């Protein structure tokens, strides 16, 4: 199981770690049992992601995908952020070992969940935008991804 240099870079020096006090979109996915929890904080203004931060409990790939995903959406519009796929994250990281692909799925979900929270806070039903999100407590699903 080998990580790319890019993964190691994002693991060793993760971008956007932390919390946003006045975030207007927060999402958490994964669970402790599976060994992966990702929490995303978004500060969205005028449809643009002005700031993003994350906290992650998880393996090297979990931290690296969180870091990369936040970089990829920072400064982007909400619409663009909604288009971010896990494969785009994997590609940006120059690949992930097969057993670690689920981390990128988790990162995509974390962002979608935070965006859903943003929509909800705005009084908008998020489903048309982010689709059906998996309940982060569905442990099995998450572990087996």
């Amino acid at each position, binding site marked *: *199981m080998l990580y790319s240099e890019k993964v190691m870079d994002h693991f060793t020096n993760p971008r956007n770690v*932390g919390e946003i006090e006045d975030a207007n979109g927060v999402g958490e996915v994964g669970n402790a049992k599976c060994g992966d929890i990702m929490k995303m904080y978004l500060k969205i203004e005028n449809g643009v992601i002005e700031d993003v931060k994350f906290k992650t409990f998880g393996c090297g790939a*979990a931290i690296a995908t969180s870091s990369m995903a936040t970089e990829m959406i920072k400064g982007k519009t909400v619409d663009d952020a909604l288009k971010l796929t896990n494969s785009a994250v994997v590609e940006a990281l120059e690949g992930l070992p097969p057993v670690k692909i689920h981390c990128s799925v988790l990162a995509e979900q974390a962002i979608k969940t935070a965006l859903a929270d943003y929509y909800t806070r705005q009084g908008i039903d998020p489903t048309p935008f982010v689709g059906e999100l998996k309940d982060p407590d569905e442990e099995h699903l998450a572990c087996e991804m």
Partner: protein
Amino acid sequence: MNRFVYADNAATTQISPEVLEAMMPWLTDGYGNASSIYKKGREARIAMEEARHKVEKALGIPQSRPDYPVEVYFTSGGSEADNWAIKGAAHLMAPKGKKHIITTVFEHHAVLHTCATLEKEGFEVTYLPVSDKGLVTAEQVEQAIRPDTALVTIMYANNEIGTIQPIAEIGAVCKRHGVLFHTDAVQAVGNVPINVVEQNIDMLSLSGHKIHAQKGIGVLYCRKGIRLPNLIDGGAQERGRRAGTENIAAIVGLGVAIEAACADIPGRAAKLSAMRDRLIEGISPMERVRLNGDAVRRLPGNVNFSFEGVEGEALLLTLDALGICASSGSACTSGSLDPSHVLLGIGLVHEVAHGSLRLTFSDYNTMEDVDYILEVLPGVISRLRAMSPLWERITKA
């Protein structure tokens, strides 16, 4: 500045200079096949039998025939030895109606997966639970023995948490009930005194690369009279019981390694446990940590802690960047879904098991290694906890 500290000796050890030196002639000019009758072959054969005697001596095996030891078989490692002993004993006893095996929940996978294969073939396996410290008792074994029990296989010392089992007591129980007894002693050799006769061990597995010999060489001790069917059929090597041209260089190295490892077990244990205890004392005061395994019945070089709120792989990668090689029972290091069956076996919940760290020492470690680990570890843990939503949840609760 950065030190290099190899603290993963339970995973594998470096080949010691003495072992390599002993191997070199057999990697260069001494390439004869030990089955060949010309001088180059005979010399290889003599060197191999000398190594076999060293293994005998280390395990307390009486030298039945000085020129021709008959109970030590060289294998390709601990895994092959475990497979051979367990599958062999099962297939040997099955025709006598004995299709029941007793083991523990926290054996090495070479034992557990072998048992699983036998279950698919129709054998029944009892997996004894272990205590929260990782111990099993002879009474547990005795209660589990049935008229159809073929084999008890219990590891001498656990590779993750280092607990040492009451092997002599278990051996006595097995003897009393006429049940074959195998022990995986891969982690025990050189760390605790072993005597297969006094401890009533019928079969024992060991592996070279855990005691500073090459990877890919191991031993199955099988008491004379137990006609284990072969795992690897073919040529007449190992008295017709384990085919394959003998790896003389590795065998000679194993002989030197086991002699060195067992030359002064109390001295060796004292040195390693001094490092172990200083490390345990240094880590214990940290917040929300837990020592895994027994404090006393423990391999001298083994330290295993769980750090709440931290995931093991991230911990290992961070330590690696600081020059420290260690291991973890996290699922993420094994590519499996669940964290180590050993940590779950002693009752850890998943989230805690994910945050485990194993540091294991050998003769090549020093107190300075321990000090360096203690110097950097708290910072590493803090940093990971600071970015962990799990830690946030734990500390806020």
